[in-house]
């Protein structure tokens, strides 16, 4: 084998040598290929496993109702589940599926934008401004981050009750306007921005707020993408808080509506699959659209 390797560049081999060379060169190439790419035999099935539930969800949402769940992939496809969702179908009581989707969107968008904006402002103050008490506030944020939030659940609920905000959009939006992790991320990131840049802007007469929004945030594009995506996703899929704080179905988020109807629709889950697809795919699409920025941002964050 070693001898034929070296001889492949020698001109005019004999017929037998030529045939022998052809066989051994191919199998060497094959062997090299296998050694380099064998990991994909494991990686691809795992990838399929990760994506399978989304696939199942999507496919089942188009399944005719007598085949939902009984057939892994249905024989025919129908829009009946989606029609049900769109027309607000329900056993006797119409269900506000589409309204719930819009509620989710409203609450999530407002909170995500707020988290980024307020996070950048506070992060700027806690990193660049160097004022007395800055360190104390930073330490307090760390303390709050590691404090078990579960203790706060009942009293925060009571605050909502007592202020009359129970069952309103405010109850869902206000407690999530600020996110500690976002502040923490912006604080660390802004520390790495060169102070001369900021000082130059100040000398030019820029106000602190315009520095934040015209200079700092554009520099922080990657990390802002990561923060926004994560916060958006967490808010969109939040259950516990939205569940306890709103009881009127037309104000509930789609996630909560799906939960309350999970049992009642147990025996005919078709519409649930359609609603769940409606709940899931915006996030997937949003995320995949920004996946490159996300990967860059994550690498930045983890360094």
């Amino acid at each position, binding site marked *: 084998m070693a001898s034929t390797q070296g001889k492949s560049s020698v001109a005019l081999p004999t017929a037998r040598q030529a045939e022998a060379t052809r066989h051994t060169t191919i199998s060497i190439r094959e062997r090299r290929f296998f050694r380099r790419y064998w990991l994909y035999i494991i990686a691809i099935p795992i990838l399929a496993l*990760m994506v399978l539930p989304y696939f*199942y969800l999507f496919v089942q949402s188009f399944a005719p109702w007598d085949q939902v769940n009984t057939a892994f992939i249905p024989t025919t496809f129908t829009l009946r589940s989606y029609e049900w969702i769109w027309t607000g179908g329900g056993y006797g009581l119409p269900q506000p599926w589409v309204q719930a989707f819009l509620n989710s969107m409203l609450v999530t968008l407002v909170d995500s934008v707020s988290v980024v904006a307020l996070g950048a402002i506070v992060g700027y103050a*806690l990193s660049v401004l*160097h004022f007395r*008490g800055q360190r104390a506030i930073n330490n307090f944020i760390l303390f709050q981050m590691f404090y078990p939030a579960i203790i706060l659940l009942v009293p925060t609920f*009571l605050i909502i009750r007592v202020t009359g905000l129970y069952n309103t959009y405010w109850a869902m939006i206000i407690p999530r306007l600020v996110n500690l992790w976002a502040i923490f991320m912006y604080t660390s990131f802004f520390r790495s921005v060169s102070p001369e840049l900021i000082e130059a802007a100040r000398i030019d007469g820029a106000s602190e707020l315009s520095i934040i929004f015209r200079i700092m945030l554009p520099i922080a594009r990657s990390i802002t993408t990561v923060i926004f995506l994560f916060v958006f996703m967490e808010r969109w899929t939040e259950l516990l808080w939205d569940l306890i704080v709103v009881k009127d179905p037309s104000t509930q988020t789609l996630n909560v509506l799906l939960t309350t109807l999970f049992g009642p629709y147990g025996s005919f889950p078709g519409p649930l699959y359609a609603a*769940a697809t409606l709940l899931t795919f915006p996030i997937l699409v949003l995320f995949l659209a920004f*996946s490159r920025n996300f990967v860059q941002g994550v690498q930045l964050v983890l360094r």
Partner: protein
Amino acid sequence: MAITSLRQGNRGAFRKSAQGWLLSSPYLIFAVIFFLIPLVWSLFLVFQQWDLIAPTPVFVGFANIKEALTSVRVWQAFLVTYKFMLLFIPTVMVSSLGLALIVHNLPRFKPLFAVGFFLPYLASGVVTSLVVRGVLSYNSAFETFLRTTFGVTPDWLNNGTSATIVVTLMIVWKFAGYWALIFLAGLQGIPTDFYEAAALDGANAWTRFWRITLPLLYPALYTVLILAVGLTFSIFTEPFVLTNGGPQMATQTWQLEIYYQAFNLFRAGYGATVALLNAIATLVSILIIRSIVEAWGRHNGWN
């Protein structure tokens, strides 16, 4: 910056201080309303009984604490949470490290697989529960397959052990790819010279992993471990939607029990008490696990 303050004297420092506090105010206001006030209120609630309907709470002294410490339900919730911890933590650590190793060693398309493995994190727990319930339902393609091929009809969700395993696997599926990113960053930080030197000394892949990779992943291991422990104490959505804590409290996590007491039975004071116990248990568990992991880290050369 120093020059500006020198020129303006104390006025500059004061202005900067005012600016700092002003720009931090979104966080400060938020922390007072949604952290400090609930924190203090929760300590009062522990000694009160309030069903949210009566105009004022009733002072009951240590009754809540006594009841919580002797309640069968609370101990069951405690056991369930620790059961999840024992099942979930090793599984998720091995899985996410495994996924990271796979992505790290893939010759091409690394970002594709990194993002692909991350996708489960985007799914709402309600959606995953819907899919799991569908796949495990009696007439599903999967169950029918099991019946015809193996003749068994496991009732996954009505058996305490299998229900726990199903919920654990669902949560592992969700988080493994996300935490793999943390391990991935850690792996990328290990200089390849170490491996080359070890290979020269005759170390095989197994040894290289245990003696080089794992110890050098200490920061990542620490982070993921703390995240995993914190997560275990707040598992809510999947057991709530899929099994509602059943069968017979086999999956009634602590968070679920707090929800039940405070929001189903309207016992705000008692709910707050159980939450306080949970918080204490969380802190104690984290401290214990931290000291074990830190000892391992020190043994391997980290300080």
